[in-house]
């Protein structure tokens, strides 16, 4: 796979836009391995730690995004949707996009084709039931997928993914056998709040129980990531988690970042779906084959 590059900054985006920012949040809540193996039902501290995200932090984030008039994308495992439908419905009602993120945050790369299809079908049914919508985007839980996943996503009607890490602007992933393609909007670990702020015990994260980073230093890192992306005219997305960076003290960190980004001209604040649509319409010539 090779990335498309070489374009001058201004040529990637609509007239007057220098760079795009597609803020994205993974509303994992308590889903993930401990739920998939059932151990979470004997681990109240860990369940409640995760549940804080959809229960409280999503609301704080929606207020923040409204204040700075920034549209965003929320990738939501549908177990979270089933248990906190009002909180997830508020995301849609306040103008943001919802994307697929598994049902209980399944690791797609470890699932059979049939199981991946089942998860996508179950998720779609729940999005239709609770929200009356069909998501266009998918972020693979845990970030890895199988050799058959692209075809499964395309068959499920998915138009774009935000799963990979290997570029700083969107690109196409073609499914050669059927002539169809996904737009990929890659994220970066530098812009994943797990790399700086997440902390939990039993199961331990980070595995070696490294310290929670300084909020000031974390803001400085993220601010520099934005500045570089904007200078070079790229697309910056994030892997933020409400339960991590939507906590009361860290909302202030995100607020500083939003204020900083808003102070720059020529930033296109967009939902991932809008970035993907633009890319498909304007850059369809620059293809790579998966």
């Amino acid at each position: 796979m090779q990335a498309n590059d070489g374009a001058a900054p201004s040529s990637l985006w609509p007239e007057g836009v220098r760079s795009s920012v597609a803020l994205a949040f993974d509303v994992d809540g308590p889903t993930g391995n401990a739920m998939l193996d059932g151990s979470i039902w004997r681990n109240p501290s860990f369940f409640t730690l995760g549940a804080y995200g959809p229960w409280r932090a999503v609301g704080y984030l929606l207020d923040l995004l409204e204040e700075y008039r920034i549209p965003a994308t929320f990738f939501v495992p549908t177990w979270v949707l089933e248990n906190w439908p009002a909180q997830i419905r508020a995301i849609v009602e306040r103008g943001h996009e919802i994307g697929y993120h598994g049902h209980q945050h399944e690791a797609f790369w470890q699932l059979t084709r049939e199981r991946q299809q089942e998860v996508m079908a179950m998720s779609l049914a729940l999005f239709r039931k609770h929200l009356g919508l069909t998501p266009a985007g998918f972020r693979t839980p845990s970030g890895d997928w199988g050799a058959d996943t692209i075809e499964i996503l395309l068959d499920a009607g998915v138009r774009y993914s935000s799963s990979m890490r290997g570029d700083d602007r969107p690109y196409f992933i073609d499914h050669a056998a059927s002539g169809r393609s996904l737009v990929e909007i890659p994220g970066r670990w530098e812009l994943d709040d797990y790399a700086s702020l997440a902390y939990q015990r039993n199961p331990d994260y980070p595995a070696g129980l490294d310290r929670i980073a300084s909020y000031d230093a974390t803001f400085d890192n993220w601010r520099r990531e934005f500045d570089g992306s904007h200078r070079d005219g790229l697309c910056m997305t994030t892997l933020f988690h409400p339960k991590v960076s939507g906590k009361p003290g860290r909302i202030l960190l995100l607020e500083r970042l939003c204020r900083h980004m808003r102070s720059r001209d020529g930033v296109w604040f967009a939902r991932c779906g809008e970035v993907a649509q633009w890319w498909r319409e304007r850059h369809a010539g620059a293809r790579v084959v998966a």
Partner: protein
Amino acid sequence: MKTPERSHWPDGKRMAFVVTVDFFDAAGILAQEPRMAGREKSLSVWQYGARRGVDRLLDVLDEFKLHASWFVPGSVALEHRAMVRRIHGAGHEIGNASFGCENFDALSLAQQRDSLLSAQAALADVTGEAPVGFRSPFGNWAPGFTQQLRAAGIQWSSSWRGDDLPYLHPSSGEAAQALVEVPLHYELEDEPYFTFNLYPPVPVGQPRIASYREVLGNWQQDFAGFHRLGLCLPLRLHPEIIGTAGRIDLLREFLSHVLSHDDVWVATGRELAAWWSSRHTGNEPGHPVDVFSPLHEASVAP
């Protein structure tokens, strides 16, 4: 950001602030890291609390006229009777932290009950008063244990997470007595930032000790967030960690910052729980504890 529409707290105060202290002595680290047994040098890191940290912490709390909620395992109270009496005599609340600082994940429900009740008896013997607060040292307990807490006269716990306001554990059976949870946040604990031992390694990955200045910065920012949103901020301290000569000023500076706001309600856990249970009979619909509890009750032991 929206400011709170109404106060959750007495006298229209904007937020609640509670200082909790885990006085676990060597019992805590021995339960967490069994390889500590017999390692005198390493154990002395945790014994520093009884040696120096408790007194230093008591002095600072006195300086700020602040009453904290101290969680003490029964075995630690029996070993440090005079010290625990002194903490209690200074007006602080003494809560139950199990008998031997056990990790409840390794105990059956019956063993958890025995640990709870033995600690109630030991603490009542030492202080003359049965605790009404409880902390599971490692955060968890088995299905059915909330009934045991109520039966033992426990009115509040600070063990679980999931909210930035207190909440109520669902009532079960005929036990109608309220059991309030004051939920924790790792970023408001001293231990994740500072605990250290070379070998056996604590934390397991041997990360560097965090920058004191930057931790103070984080705590001040956390406080600003909790204050703005009108929430309940529980600090969780350890005398052997925060009560060192070099780190105690970090606490002093933080308390001084918090208490410079006249709209902060400073309470013990017991006062907080009494206030909350007098105003609430349940939680908002969809609360994590209400989602979790039926699944917890239905779960099978691993």
